[in-house]
């Protein structure tokens, strides 16, 4: 097909988790024929094992599909898949910026959820044409008319004639495609202007190096061009451009304004590609980059250590490999008195952190010890210096600190009415400030709170789930820093401070947290030869105390007929157990104890 912008449709699919985004994407691929039925594994776009398991998309992807519409014309549809979680909000916003339209998938029985709204607002911010689609109409509990009304009332979208589909059963897929062709505007970009290509994703390919997924907003780019990253300030020679097919690359001579595809330029380090950056030509640069670039900063940090110190090199190699594909992951070596050599890792959020930990364990078969996650605190010292602290161990002494600030988020929760009280109580417990409450369709309520991020990363999700039996949905966005009365809580084992167990908490939370951690440690630390006092302390003042009683009896009564193998086996087992423990002074602490601190009540 020759280049004709009027035949291009760039769109994404937005949905609350579980509303069937990936399944709809699969059906679209199938319908347009780029995937034969026999090539399809479920949820093609979610290729990473973890993505499939969790039913969420971690990385953005884009697929080009030729589609011959009912009007007899051939169109080029570019589906840009967006990450489905709050941790990747910025990536989502860049993917949206690459589109003209968004298909909004709403579950016919669940209706609007927190992420639905958050996604819609974001799509509106990018002036996208939003096309509602009601999914799962085959379910007995489906109420498409109610949900349509809800969308009209809550979001103000016209649902007249919107496609009613069952992605699972393959019902109504063609209606979705026709709706896109007829209603999503074609790009109207200037192919003659200097190149402006928006990077909405990056990843690493073993043969091509780090690759940028782009939407060309102006001009064109071809093999051999020298490109410049406008924010990244580096230049490369283009080795390949093209479009994506579900199972691979489709190299082309050039990519022009309005098109979506990839640019490869033998880039070794993915850190040279910033999502949101603009690519232009070195010899004919655009005057301005595209708007909206901001560097991606980790919001949550934790220490990751090999359970067996001998695995340090393996852990480093594994992090290096993951980092190839994930510019948002940061890590640098750190040492802990208790845990030895490991890495301080930065993540976009808790989910990102969990995903990385699980990938390290599964794909690289590593046994890890992770420390409690920490947010980045702003510390203003008495001498006027400002520090950003992501590791409690590095916090200056109380005397040196003038004041501290902590990151806050704008949080919105959508919940059935009956749980409003429980959620308000939870947000109160979490030091939240009430902002707004709104009744929406279906007897549900939208609650808005300002919450400290360090409370959100603690056990907010678990609490929300258990207090609302999983009915509430939650979404948040970073808001900025606020002054707060924070203290460093230390844990002492047999009088020795254990650096890996220190956390920064609000003063009002210090006592219950200290007591809870001491109790958890008491359960996790096995009895030893001597009694072990466990203390929680703030600045040397003990606020909670527990004791692991001394071992009373640990002896094998006899060796049978010179058979010492039982005793040897027992000893081997004990030695193995001890090897997996960390020495804090004279106390042996099992790896699990460090994790136990993360899991609360």
């Amino acid at each position, binding site marked *: 097909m020759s280049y004709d912008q009027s035949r291009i449709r760039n769109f994404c699919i937005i949905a609350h988790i579980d509303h069937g985004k990936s399944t709809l994407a699969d059906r679209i691929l199938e319908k347009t024929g780029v995937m034969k039925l026999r090539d399809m594994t479920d949820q093609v776009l979610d290729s990473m094992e973890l993505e499939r398991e969790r039913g969420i998309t971690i990385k953005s992807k884009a697929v080009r599909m030729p589609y011959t519409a009912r009007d007899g014309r051939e169109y080029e549809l570019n589906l840009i898949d967006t990450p489905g979680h709050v941790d990747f909000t910025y990536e989502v916003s860049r993917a949206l910026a690459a589109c003209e339209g968004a298909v909004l998938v709403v579950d016919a029985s669940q209706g609007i959820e927190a992420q639905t709204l958050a996604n819609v607002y974001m799509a509106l911010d990018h002036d996208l044409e939003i096309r509602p689609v009601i999914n799962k109409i085959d379910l007995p509990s489906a109420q498409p008319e109610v949900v349509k009304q809800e969308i009209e009332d809550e979001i103000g979208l016209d649902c007249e004639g919107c496609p009613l589909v069952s992605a699972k059963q393959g019902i109504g897929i063609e209606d979705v495609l026709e709706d896109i062709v007829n209603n999503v505007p074609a790009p109207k970009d200037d192919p003659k202007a200097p190149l402006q290509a928006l990077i909405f994703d990056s990843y690493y390919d073993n043969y091509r190096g780090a690759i940028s997924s782009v939407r060309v907003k102006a001009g064109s780019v071809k093999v051999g061009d020298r490109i410049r990253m406008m924010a990244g300030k580096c230049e490369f020679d283009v080795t390949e451009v093209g479009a994506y097919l579900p199972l691979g690359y489709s190299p082309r001579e050039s990519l022009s304004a309005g098109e979506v595809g990839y640019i490869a330029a033998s880039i070794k380090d993915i850190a040279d590609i910033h999502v949101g950056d603009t690519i232009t030509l070195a010899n004919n640069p655009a005057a301005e980059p595209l708007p909206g670039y901001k560097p991606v900063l980790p919001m949550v940090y934790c220490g990751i250590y090999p359970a067996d110190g001998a695995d340090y090199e393996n852990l480093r190699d594994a992090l290096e490999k993951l980092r190839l594909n994930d510019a948002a992951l940061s890590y640098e070596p750190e040492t802990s008195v208790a845990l030895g050599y490991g890495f301080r890792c930065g993540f976009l959020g808790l989910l990102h952190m969990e995903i990385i930990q699980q990938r390290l364990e599964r794909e690289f078969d590593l046994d890890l010890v992770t420390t409690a996650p920490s947010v980045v605190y702003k510390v203003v010292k008495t001498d006027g210096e400002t520090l950003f602290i992501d590791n409690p161990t590095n916090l200056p002494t109380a005397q040196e600190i003038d004041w501290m600030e902590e990151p806050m988020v704008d949080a919105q929760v959508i919940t059935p009415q009956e749980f409003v009280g429980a959620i308000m109580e939870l947000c109160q417990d979490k030091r939240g400030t009430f902002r707004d409450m709104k009744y929406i369709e279906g007897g549900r309520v939208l609650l808005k709170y300002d919450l400290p991020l360090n409370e959100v990363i603690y056990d907010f999700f678990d609490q929300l789930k258990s207090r609302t039996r999983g009915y509430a949905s939650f979404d948040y966005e970073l808001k900025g820093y606020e002054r707060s009365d924070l203290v460093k809580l230390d844990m002492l084992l047999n009088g020795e401070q254990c650096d890996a167990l220190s956390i920064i908490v609000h003063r009002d939370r210090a006592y219950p947290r200290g007591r809870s951690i001491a109790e958890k440690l008491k359960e996790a630390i096995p009895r030893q030869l001597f009694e072990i006092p466990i203390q929680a302390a703030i600045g040397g003042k003990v606020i909670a105390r527990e004791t692991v009683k001394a071992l*009373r009896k*640990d002896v094998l009564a*006899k060796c*049978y*007929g*010179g058979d010492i193998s039982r005793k040897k086996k027992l*000893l081997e087992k004990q*030695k193995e157990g001890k090897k997996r423990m960390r020495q804090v002074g004279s106390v042996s602490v099992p790896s699990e104890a460090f994790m136990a601190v993360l899991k609360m009540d």
Partner: protein
Amino acid sequence: MSALSLYIHVPFCRSKCAYCDFASYPGREGDWRRYFEALWGEIDAWAPRLVGRRAVTAFFGGGTPTLMDAEYIAETLARLRRAVPFAPDAEITCEGNPGTLTPEKLTVLRGAGVNRLSLGAQSFDDALLTALGRIHTAAQTGEAVRMAREAGFGNVSLDLMYALPGQSMAQWRDTLDAAVALGVEHISAYSLIVEPGTPMAARVASGAAALPEDDEVNAMQRHAVHALAGAGYGRYEISNFACRGFECRHNLVYWDRGEYLGLGCAAHSLLEGRRFHNPESLDGYLAGGREEEAQRLTAADAAEETVMLATRTTRGLDLARWEREFGAPFRRGREAALARLARGGWIETDGGFLRLTPRGMELHNAVVLELLEDTKA
């Protein structure tokens, strides 16, 4: 001539006790003959490899070696004497269970040269004996000791058990008193070990049997040490007590890492720097399986075993011998652990021996772990 100890396993019992998971096979009377023939064959096969050695101890263990005709034991001893010369003062022990002994059997054993009898008394409380699945009564134990004396045994030992489900301190006290009253030369007092897969383990798991708390077990053990010392039995190993001069030399060989050859089903050996054993199952042994899982011990293995075994005895670990054997002072690399353990009162060093205190013995595994811990450092 280098000293050798012999262990001969007799894997037959009338019935299986509730706590037992050793190689013992009730109801295989039909295989007794075959078994001893296989055993004698094994002895003959070893003979050429034992040239230049002298047997200093022999131990018939089980199972119940007194279950069958004593001629089997006598013939086995005769074959052993042909295979390897015995020292004139060799200690020759036979284990036996009250209820399987007769004056005739004892006379045959004594006549064959057996000079030490070790009886599985376990308890002097008939209800506890029944619960353990033992086939004898307390009265039969007393009778067995008297018969042994009459047959001329001057060295008799009783095995006793404590930490039994439902056992009170008073019952344990009475059992110790009864054992002492019989005037035996040696007493072994073992804390019950609940082995997985035994009826006892199932009873404990189902809650049908409740094990005493650690503190209660320690109290029983401390009472044994105290009461037996008062009656003239010195503790020479974690679970073993003897009148002066009646310490079991055979068992001391195990703890001293002396050389021993195990013959018969499931028997373990330490010979020429190797550990190996015969098949655990009777059928495996009858089918000709021998010397399985042979492992040549490295210096590190030997060092680890030394720490594990020597610390079981009240004599302790011979520091000068350690240095001779392993080329470095025992202290080296263990300074911190030794200081910590001494400060805690778990170990003491004097007269060139490092030994565990009575408190240290209660935590033998944990203390050994500390002593090994620094070996690699």
